């Protein structure tokens, strides 16, 4: 009998991780934190191959907890674990974490201020053809409205690793919004991460693009092309959506003619909403264009096709910016 061979383009769960360096960073960083003495407990709900935590399990099986397909149970149990001094990292699809477990996150984790880390992976429309049930285009808005919860969206694997390390001693809960781990790298392993401090990639008198998570890389590419055309364009990597770096936003508002937020999220309530609140409160008279997924359910399709459709790739962001600048 010969073994079956899956087509190389298929989503074979064990091999997907090899194509997802961003998710390898999750497992590897958590493993290293255990080695360094942090009481990390990695929790999964039957998605250890999708989020790569099987690698953590191989290294620290005693600190790996499998909950099966019971996400709400997992989040509440993580809260219980945290009360005993453990540091649980709970990972599941962002759609299930932020929507299905919203109440457990609010009431059991955030309200008591417990140091649970919530890893919402495959966020936005990265699960493409899986459809709306698996899309998370509301998670930033929902998580942002929960008092006491920090909301972080790293742009790539190195920044995720840096963020996990930088927040290892953070006393309260953190929601990490990550993609499918295939984001092209913006940073190298030397990247510094400070919770709540955005990273400026140049400044622009014409335009500042405020990006978060998966949109940082294409925003930088779009900005480079615009600069080639003699526009003055800066990019602000707003990796922490909450607490928002208000001074960086206001600086951009003061120095740029136009601001554009770009996010793989509903245009309501996420990064764009957060930036709009700061600008309105401050009275800064700058135009803000919120770019993202319109307030509707995304189409199904392969992720890269969806990014092109919603103008969230470099070409799309560039086109969106040119219309603003014209």
């Amino acid at each position, binding site marked *: 009998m010969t073994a079956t061979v899956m087509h190389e383009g298929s989503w074979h769960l064990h091999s997907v991780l090899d194509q997802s360096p961003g998710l390898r960073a999750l497992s590897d960083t958590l493993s290293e934190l255990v080695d360094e003495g942090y009481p990390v407990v990695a929790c999964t709900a039957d998605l250890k191959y999708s989020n790569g935590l099987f690698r953590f399990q191989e290294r620290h099986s005693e600190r790996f907890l499998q909950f099966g397909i019971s996400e709400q149970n997992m989040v509440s149990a993580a809260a219980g674990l945290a009360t005993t001094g453990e540091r649980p990292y709970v990972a599941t699809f962002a759609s299930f974490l932020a929507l299905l477990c919203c109440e457990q996150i609010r009431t059991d984790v955030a309200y*008591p201020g417990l140091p649970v880390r919530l890893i919402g992976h495959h966020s936005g429309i990265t699960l493409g053809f899986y459809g709306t049930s698996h899309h998370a285009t509301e998670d930033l808005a929902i998580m942002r409205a929960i008092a006491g919860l920090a909301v972080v969206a790293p742009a790539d694997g190195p920044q995720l690793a840096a963020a996990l390390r930088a927040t290892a001693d953070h006393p309260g809960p953190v929601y990490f919004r990550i993609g499918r781990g295939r984001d092209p790298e913006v940073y190298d392993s030397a990247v510094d991460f400070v919770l709540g401090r955005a990273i400026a990639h140049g400044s622009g008198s014409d335009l500042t693009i405020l990006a978060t998570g998966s949109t940082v890389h294409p925003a930088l590419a779009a900005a480079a092309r615009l600069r080639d055309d003699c526009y003055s364009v800066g990019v602000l990597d707003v990796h922490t959506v909450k607490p928002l770096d208000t001074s960086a936003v206001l600086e951009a508002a003061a120095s740029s003619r136009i601001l554009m937020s770009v996010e793989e999220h509903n245009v309501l309530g996420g990064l764009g909403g957060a930036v709009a609140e700061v600008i309105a409160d401050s009275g800064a008279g700058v135009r803000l264009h919120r770019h993202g997924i319109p307030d509707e359910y995304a189409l199904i399709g392969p992720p890269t096709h969806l990014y092109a459709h919603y103008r969230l790739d470099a070409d799309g962001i560039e086109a969106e910016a040119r219309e603003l600048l014209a």
Partner: protein
Amino acid sequence: MTTTAAELDLIRAKARFSREETVRLIQIAKVGHYASSFSCAEILATLYYGVMRLKRGEPDWPDRDRFLFGKGHAAAALYPLLVDWGFFEKDVLDEYTRLGNPLGDHPDMSRVPGIDFSSGSLGHALSAGLGMALGGRLQGRDFRVFVLLGDGELHEGQVWEAAMSSAHHRARNLIAIVDRNEYSLDGRVDDVIGIEPLVGKWRSFGWETREVDGHDVTELLDTLRDLVDDEMRQQPAVVVARTVKGKGVSFMETELGWHLGYLVPEDEERALDEIRARA
């Protein structure tokens, strides 16, 4: 451990104290869950004065046994016991539910020393208790985790997620107690959504099961002590405690509607007389 008459008398006295104080607290708040509090008075008194390892005045002692109140709307029955344990001052209790007071209708771990986990939204407590039990095991601590669930609470799906995973993880330091008082807000639990066969459900989920009269402190104490002392037991355990909603006040036992209410002064006297008259 052998049960002595003095221990049983103490537990009965504390159950009576819990009921009296519940009446007094609800008098302050002008509304409260009398009947739900009364059905679990013996369960709470047995846990806090016969089973749980606690240190007076040290609500954060790391090796203490944990208690999670799934049916948190009966918190008025527990607060007086926490004061009695020296976890917070009685003058806090005397201001129950008044503006800015930490004590609300549901127990809040962020505000109330001695509350090991907040509750209010039904169905979360068993999961949180499982997390504590697993945390204790990871740390090599031998504390036990007790979770008191309402029978209506068992309608929540998360309870059964927790039941399944607790058995899978062999959380033997986790003990659930179901206050089977048979009533939820809209009527008899089994008319609202049937939950029987209850013991069979837990057993089929892989739990060690016991069934007791939840007002018989001898039976409660013996059963809970047997379960915590049983070194051979590998699985989490549940005690289904058959109780009477409103137990101890005759008109609450027979009249529906005392799930949430407020007694007029004459009825309050009748209620207190009956509570004090019980042995």
